[in-house]
């Protein structure tokens, strides 16, 4: 029943998130028709003529090169940008709140009076949150191969799963960080804002030469899979280890907290 409680506490955030990512996913898919009309003009630009000495030029060139076909368009617009940003935001939203929250109607003392350990409370809440995050990353991604024929295109299920998994695994880092911060701060907003700030810093840092290949968002986009058909295993393993460490820290922090 703890699962049910965790679900009731997070379901509105999850359902809003699911609606947003599904609508955004469809939006990107149907946007391809308009983009396709611009392709003849885009193809007249020779990427080699773009000055790539600065981050902006490199980004424009990368975008042009990637989006020459539907697969590249979906990867760049959806997995690299929209889905990554949305999952990061909803990971922070799903991880925020919880037992320490002083919001009215949370029944904190009632929960603590039940014969369960605090570790179990953290564990169940994390499991439900991660399952919701998994759905947010995978459901809209799997709708792409299903619905792309409606615009006369096709998209591989394997690609959708591979990219969705990358988004999910890195998204768990932001979820776990929000969970840890929520065992420290009694309000809902500070963990959320701090995680968003961390994500923004992580995104900006990726423009620093030399850091980009190891950046969280590069791993999240599954760029190595897109370009070389190989999953970024090291990045995914590091992200998973970071998530596990953050969740363990959350459980330890909660275990020692006074209410």
């Amino acid at each position, binding site marked *: *029943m703890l699962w049910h409680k965790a679900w*009731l506490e997070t379901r509105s955030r999850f359902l809003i998130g699911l609606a947003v990512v599904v609508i955004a996913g469809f939006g990107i898919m149907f946007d391809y028709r308009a983009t396709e009309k611009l392709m003849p003009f885009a193809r007249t630009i020779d990427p080699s003529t773009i000055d790539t000495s600065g981050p902006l030029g490199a980004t424009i060139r990368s975008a042009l090169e990637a989006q020459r076909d539907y697969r590249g368009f979906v990867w760049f617009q959806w997995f690299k940008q929209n889905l990554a940003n949305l999952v990061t935001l909803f990971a922070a939203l799903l991880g925020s709140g919880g037992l320490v929250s002083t919001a009215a109607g*949370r029944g904190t003392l009632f929960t603590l*009076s039940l*014969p369960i350990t605090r570790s179990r409370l953290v564990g169940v809440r994390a499991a439900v949150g991660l399952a919701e995050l998994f759905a947010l990353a995978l459901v809209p991604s799997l709708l792409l191969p299903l619905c792309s024929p409606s615009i006369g295109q096709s998209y591989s299920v394997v690609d959708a799963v591979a990219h969705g998994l990358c988004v999910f695994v890195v998204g768990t880092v932001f979820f776990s960080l929000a969970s840890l911060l929520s065992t420290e701060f009694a309000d809902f907003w500070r963990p959320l804002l701090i995680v968003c700030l961390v994500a923004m810093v992580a995104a900006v840092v990726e423009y620093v030469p030399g850091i980009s290949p190891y950046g969280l968002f590069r791993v999240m986009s599954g760029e190595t899979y897109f370009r070389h058909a190989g999953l970024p295993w090291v990045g995914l393993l590091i992200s998973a280890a970071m998530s596990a460490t953050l969740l363990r820290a959350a459980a330890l922090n909660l275990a020692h907290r006074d209410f």
Partner: protein
Amino acid sequence: MREPVAIEIAELRKTYDSMDALRGLNLQVPTGSIFGFLGRNGAGKTTTIKVLMGMTRPTSGAARVFGLACDAQDSSVSIRRRTGFVGEDKELYDYMTVEEIIRFTATFYRRWRPDLETRYLKSFELPPHVKTKALSRGARTKLALLLALCRSADLLVLDEPTAGLDPAVTEEVLQVLVSHVAGEEMTVFFSSHQIAEVDQIADRIAIIDRGQTLVAGALDDLRENYRRIQLVFGGDAPHATFQSRGAGRVRRKGRVLTVLSSAGSDAILEEARRLQPVSVDVMPVTLKEIFLESVAVED
């Protein structure tokens, strides 16, 4: 097997930042008693209860329930498995209906009593399909009590169970509590600053103030042992102190000197007669007077 002592607290201290909430509290709650835990606001009642329930860790000292340490995670879970709890805030899950929170709570207790659940749902007139956030404070208290009573708990810990309730609901809650305890073998430990309700249902009490126990014992013994001795003199009452065991605060007003004794009146009477008063009266003391005297002594 039932332990002779349900709750045992020894030299319990709790410090929040630089504030001492508990300063060496000592307490024993015998199994089967209805124990009233009295104290002013901020005396340390809620902190003590939170330590017992494993919600707060003591800074030092020991708190044991059923012989199990409250600050160890595993034993705390075992304690909570045998304990019903109603918190001061009466906060439940706003997003659950009455029926949902009952079903949710029942899953944690193997000895959950569906018969009591049905009985109290009916007698408390709780609407099963209404969300708990829509309930009045009185109804929420009744629901919290139902969730505590149906656990077949060996110990009931109630933190200010009637706080904020109107007199009619207060009376109803107390009556349910008394009749429930009469039919079940259990210990009740409840905090309050409402002396009348403690007087009404408790058989043992402790009065605490500023994190320390001032008075503890069986209510009948306290009533028996506490006496107010009033001495009237021909002129102004003399400045006097009493050395006898149990002698408490001495009050002097004009010709009258009163002293409160917690150990009967004989020894103090013998001392008092040496002061040659015109008259001596020995009067029984109410729990309210014991409380006020105890707390005032600290001032």
